[in-house]
């Protein structure tokens, strides 16, 4: 170290970095090394394991956690949730996986971030918490796997990316389809030119909806049972209703991202960006058309975000169309292609699009190697910016032009104001 500056002092990283068998990070199509190869006999000494915490682990979070628990180079040590029932449910899941009762629980995520032994966190809260929790984690020296959508607003996604750029912490957005083979295969066809010159990309989205009404007020339960103030977090105050904490927050303006658009589009638009080699930009025009939003990139390629009219390939389908062919695939792993000559490349993919196994392994590898994972903050930022821009166009009900370099709308003050919202104190980004 340069003697000019004091030493780093107590490190927050475990010494496993010095002794572990490092693997490389993401390439164009991430190459995943199974965790078992990292140990000579399949095991990794406790002192060399990554220590992780889970925050806000609900139904989707448990699916992701289920891919982390079997990994021999990771130890999940604590679960944080504002709901007591969730804390106990997930703790039981962790304890069963490890065959002990060592996993601790807590209600307040600040306790997690204050622990120097924790290297990384899985954040699977509701949308409203993803960005502030991830930023807090990074500032506390933790690497983050955050479920998507990663920010409630366009501006939150920008600031989140900036925090991870500045701190150098590893960030993986929960857009796991980047590490699922059938989607990788479809993207490879598009990028390699085997579909000819790309002209139209199709991204599936939910039927969009937006709710501003509040559910009827109910008495707040004891904080240890449900901490309503913490549940709200950065979202503005409203009275408690038990249905919110049971999942009925979706489509609520204050809790959901972009009128439900980002629920699927965080995945599907992300894949379209990748297919079009546009991970560093976003479309320049957006036009709502009922429940569909049509966009256009500066390179002329169109992006159509639509809820209907898909082949039967499962949820979250995408379709890439070029001058010489097209490919469509979804979460079942099934691939449909044209022209017939492409069928010689047909493959059978058994891993479902919702499976995060390879994606979490990618994250864990990058925690060790300090490489950027497949869905790092830069990729996340651009695809989420595109999604939020589309959602704003839909909400305003008119076409919008967008400057991807400035990440602002051209000549539309209302749209620009909608890029950001104030966050409730003390949860600020």
């Amino acid at each position: 170290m340069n003697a000019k500056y004091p030493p780093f002092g107590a490190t927050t990283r475990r010494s496993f970095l010095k002794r572990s068998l490092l693997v490389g990070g993401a390439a164009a199509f991430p190459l995943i090394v199974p965790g078992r190869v990292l140990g000579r006999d399949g095991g990794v000494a406790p002192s060399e394991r990554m220590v992780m915490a889970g925050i806000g682990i609900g139904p989707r979070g448990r699916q992701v956690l289920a891919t982390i628990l079997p990994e021999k180079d990771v130890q999940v040590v604590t679960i944080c949730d504002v709901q007591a029932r969730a804390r106990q449910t997930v703790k039981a899941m962790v304890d069963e996986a490890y065959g002990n009762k060592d996993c601790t629980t807590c209600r307040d995520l600040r306790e997690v971030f204050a622990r120097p032994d924790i290297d990384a966190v899985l954040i699977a809260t509701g949308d409203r918490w993803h960005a502030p929790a991830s930023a807090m984690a990074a500032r506390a020296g933790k690497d983050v796997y955050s479920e998507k959508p990663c920010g409630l607003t366009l501006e939150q996604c920008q600031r989140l990316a900036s925090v991870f750029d500045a701190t150098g912490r590893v960030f993986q957005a929960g857009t796991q389809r980047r590490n699922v083979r059938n989607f990788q295969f479809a993207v490879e066809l598009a990028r390699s030119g085997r579909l000819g010159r790309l002209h139209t990309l199709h991204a599936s989205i939910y039927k969009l909806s937006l709710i501003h009404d509040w559910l009827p007020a109910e008495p707040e339960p004891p904080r240890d049972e449900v901490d309503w103030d913490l549940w709200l977090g950065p979202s503005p105050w409203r009275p408690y209703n038990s249905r919110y904490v049971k999942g009925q927050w979706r489509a609520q303006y204050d809790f959901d991202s972009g009128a439900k658009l980002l629920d699927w589009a965080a995945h599907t638009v992300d894949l379209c960006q990748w297919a079009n080699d546009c991970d560093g930009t976003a479309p320049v025009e957006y036009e709502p058309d009922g429940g569909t939003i049509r966009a256009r990139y500066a390179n002329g390629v169109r992006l159509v975000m639509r809820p209907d009219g898909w082949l039967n390939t499962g949820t979250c389908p995408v379709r890439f169309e070029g001058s010489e062919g097209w490919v469509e695939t979804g979460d079942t792993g099934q691939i449909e292609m044209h022209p017939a000559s492409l069928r010689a490349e047909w493959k059978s993919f058994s891993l479902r699009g919702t499976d995060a196994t390879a994606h979490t392994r990618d994250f864990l590898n990058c925690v060790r190697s300090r490489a950027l994972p497949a869905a790092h903050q830069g990729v996340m930022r651009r695809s989420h910016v595109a999604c939020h821009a589309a959602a704003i166009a839909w909400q305003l009900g008119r076409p919008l032009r967008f400057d991807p370099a400035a990440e602002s709308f051209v000549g539309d003050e209302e749209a620009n104001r909608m890029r950001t919202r104030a966050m409730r104190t003390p949860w600020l980004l």
Partner: protein
Amino acid sequence: MQNTTLSLPRVSLVAASLAAVFLAGCQGPRSASAPDSEAAPLAVSPAAKVGDAARTAPLLDTLRSATAPLHDRARACQQLAVVGSSDAVPALAGLLADPQLGDYAREALECMPHPDAGAALREALGRLEGRPLLGAIHSVGARRDGGSVDALARLLRRPEPDVSVEAARALGRIGGQAALRHLRNRLETPPSDEALRSAAEACNEAAHAALGLGRASEARALFEAVLRTPVPGQPRLTAALGLLRAQGEGAAEAVIRHLESGDAASVAVGLRAVREIPGEALTRRLEAYFSGARPAVRAELLPALADRVGARFARTAEACVDEAAPRAVRLAAIRALGRIGSGTSVTPLLRTAAAAGDAEAAAAALTSLSQLRADGVDAAVLSSLERADAGLKAKLIGVLGQRGNAAVAGAVLQLAASADPAVSRAAFRALDSLSRPGDQREIFRLLRACKDDEGRRLLERAAIVAAMKSETPERRTTVVVEELAGAADPAYRAALQRVRDKLTAQSR
């Protein structure tokens, strides 16, 4: 590296149309379709005026009403955040201390580019307390309100930790000489560890923003100021990484010091810098350093250099695969070759895969062989099968399957008939990706002869894959239907039926 952050719009008020649907909070519009033209740009519709009294007056009435429901007043604030103008400022400012509506009102002021909104927030810094004060501090920071610097400097010296921390953050976001002067003073004489940490974070944010705008020397000075303090943990790491970025190619020796430090966090900073900081001079220096570095450093640096340099680094990595190299370096090299290797990488990888004594290295070599993008790999793996024992043969067949090159399908089909169960099973699995439409009859011949459930399952999958590759969907079931017509054995018939049913389902 993208460092831009959102700055609040400074555009003058422009006409903007308001979708009634947004104000009413209903579901999205039912609009007419635009003509679907590939070439024509979208037309931007005429915009109605932000601040149009016809739109904002009802919202202000709701906001000021003593009897309007709380929800309606909250919604009015949210809508004013988008369409409000200076006439809404007094009513909004009056709500900043409200425990339920304060954040809603603040959002409207924060989003409104009008100077009156900024003035209201600035004024509020002097009268609010508690969470409302924290919110106002944050909002002036989000607006990058240079006029708030003096007020923030006073708040920086408040005894309440959360107030001074938030004030520091706001100063960091605002940046500029005046704000940074206060922060640097704070760095030099912090009243507490928390104060030091918040000042360091704020300076880091300002420096990061400066770096993103191309002001490297300004960024460098700030990062160095942070590093001269004893602040530990992430703020220190952030400053260290930032300084390397600000130094650019000139950071070579500093990067090397990080890599050699023996401190895990410092090494992590160095590795990130290796991957990020561009420049051929830095690359050459790192490559020269690599060759003489101690093994622990080489093992960690190798993957990062492989990512940085790419295919040109393959020869260096191949040399590190030599069995005489330290084990950690060997393993790192073997894994890196899967990403950056070329045709010359095949021989050392095959040799490693075949060598006894290090199962982990052998497994890593097989993985890299399956990933290697180079000409001649499949042919080399095929030819190596002749010399391989059954165990290795099975693994190498697995590599061919993972590589997915249908040109080797014929050879793998022959191996599928092997008397050695490990070899035949491996071939069955590989056919899952390799089989071609013309292979169906041979696969069915193997299926007819197969007597165990696992083998049948694998061959059924291979048959499905082969059929699905048929160019004409109508012909996918032709061969299996013909086979069924002549199949007598019940187990074989059942297998064929499963294949037919799967193909039929896939074709719907």
